[in-house]
């Protein structure tokens, strides 16, 4: 009974409970609730690790080969990133309301997949390679960074608006817009090099596996679009001196494109990269 699905179902509910606690914590100023939310998040993350390890044992390979497995990996990375934020900046605990919710949504999306996409299947020959681990892990560190930046970007827009109106509001609990903007930048600065590296590793691997670095497969094309959006973010930020709202919008649009790259392209635009 202790299979990866069992632990997966547990983390689904733990992350849901943790996200709810963070959301209530945002509403009412009770530190105890914040501690509870963090404890649940931490337990959820430990069990998320267990899901990955058990799945690895069950499949006999690195468990990053399809949509379902990579969603478990993504939530693990997002929550790891969040735990790091919370340990470093205790005062930013309200960020959990949105970041842990995003991790929960990743798990929820995986749970919604039809069973045949969740089932363990032998790895197709093209994926039987150590490149799989390198390419997927680097890309997903990048996606996790973008996911966190996306959450921060949304919070920034609410907070900035509340600050401008000057009235007392629900968003008073959020960190100042300045902190949110700065952290948004930090997480994209982490995510971008990893996604860049992930694309490069993918191209090298494609050369081994498919005999060409780049074949304008829909996944490749869209990954390039995503790359350009975030490259535009850096250009705006570093060259043009953009800050605040503009870059927040960029981080939101960028992550929306990532979601399309990952879910949309896989289902809508079939191509070479058909596994996930």
């Amino acid at each position: 009974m202790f299979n990866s699905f069992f632990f997966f179902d547990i983390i689904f509910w733990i992350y849901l409970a943790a996200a709810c606690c963070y959301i209530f914590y945002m509403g009412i100023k009770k530190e105890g609730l914040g501690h509870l939310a963090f404890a649940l998040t931490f337990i959820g993350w430990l069990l998320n690790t267990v899901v990955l390890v058990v799945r690895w044992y069950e499949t006999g390979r690195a468990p990053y080969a399809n949509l379902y497995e990579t969603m478990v990996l993504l939530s693990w990375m997002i929550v790891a990133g969040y735990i790091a934020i919370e340990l470093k900046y205790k005062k930013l605990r309200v960020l959990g309301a949105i970041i842990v919710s995003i991790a929960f949504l990743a798990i929820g999306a995986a749970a919604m997949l039809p069973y045949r996409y969740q089932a363990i299947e032998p790895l197709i020959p093209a994926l039987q390679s150590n490149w799989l681990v390198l390419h997927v892990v680097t890309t997903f560190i990048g996606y996790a960074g973008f996911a966190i930046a996306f959450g921060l970007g949304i919070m920034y827009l609410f907070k900035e608006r509340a600050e401008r109106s000057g009235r007392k509001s629900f968003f008073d609990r959020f960190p100042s817009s300045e902190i949110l903007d700065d952290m948004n930048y930090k997480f994209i600065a982490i995510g971008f090099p990893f996604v860049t590296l992930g694309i490069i590793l993918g191209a090298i691997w494609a050369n081994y596996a498919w005999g060409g670095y780049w074949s304008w497969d829909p996944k490749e094309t869209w990954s390039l679009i995503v790359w350009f959006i975030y490259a535009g973010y850096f250009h705006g930020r570093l060259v043009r001196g953009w800050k605040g709202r503009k870059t927040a919008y960029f981080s939101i649009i960028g992550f929306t494109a990532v979601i399309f790259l990952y879910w949309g392209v896989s289902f809508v635009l079939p191509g070479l990269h058909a596994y996930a």
Partner: protein
Amino acid sequence: MPELTLEEENRDKGGGKSTAIIIAIVILAGIIGAVWLKSSKYAPVMVGSTAPDFTLQDMSGKGYTLSSLKGKVVFVNFWATWCKSCKDEMPSMQTLYAYLKDRNMPFEMLAISMDRVTTQKEIDPFVRSLGITFPILLDPWGKTDGKYKLTGVPESYIIDQEGRVVEKIIGPRDWTTINAVEKIFGLLNIQPQPQAERS
């Protein structure tokens, strides 16, 4: 980055933390318990195992619960409007259904549509065009997909009077042939007659 004041952190040192950890462990135990109670769902659905129960509505909103059909032989079929071989299979299911209904056999046929919200509206024209009279159940959230661990559509299960799976059929079948209905007729104690074939 602006300097962060750590006043909030210092506000309640110790205090709420141990309580929070205890509550978190209680919640964890509750979740593990609840998931554990439902752990039978991780077992594969095979011949001989109890057919996973479900409650779904048909197109008119009438509810069907598998477990309430004990005493009847139940034919559960999973299909979708976008599935070509489902469309090929269904007329033969209709023939079988009509044949057994005419003879008032304790038999029920439930065809569960795996269409998600995007193709839901195509179910009604599909069913009309094929002249189907057996219940078509809707499962837009794929609740039964995970329970039955479907490998695709169509997939059919023959369930005996006690609710056990007697036969699991992956892919389509012509239900007007004697070989195809052997198990069903056996459970219903009918001798196959030539009329059972295409009428």
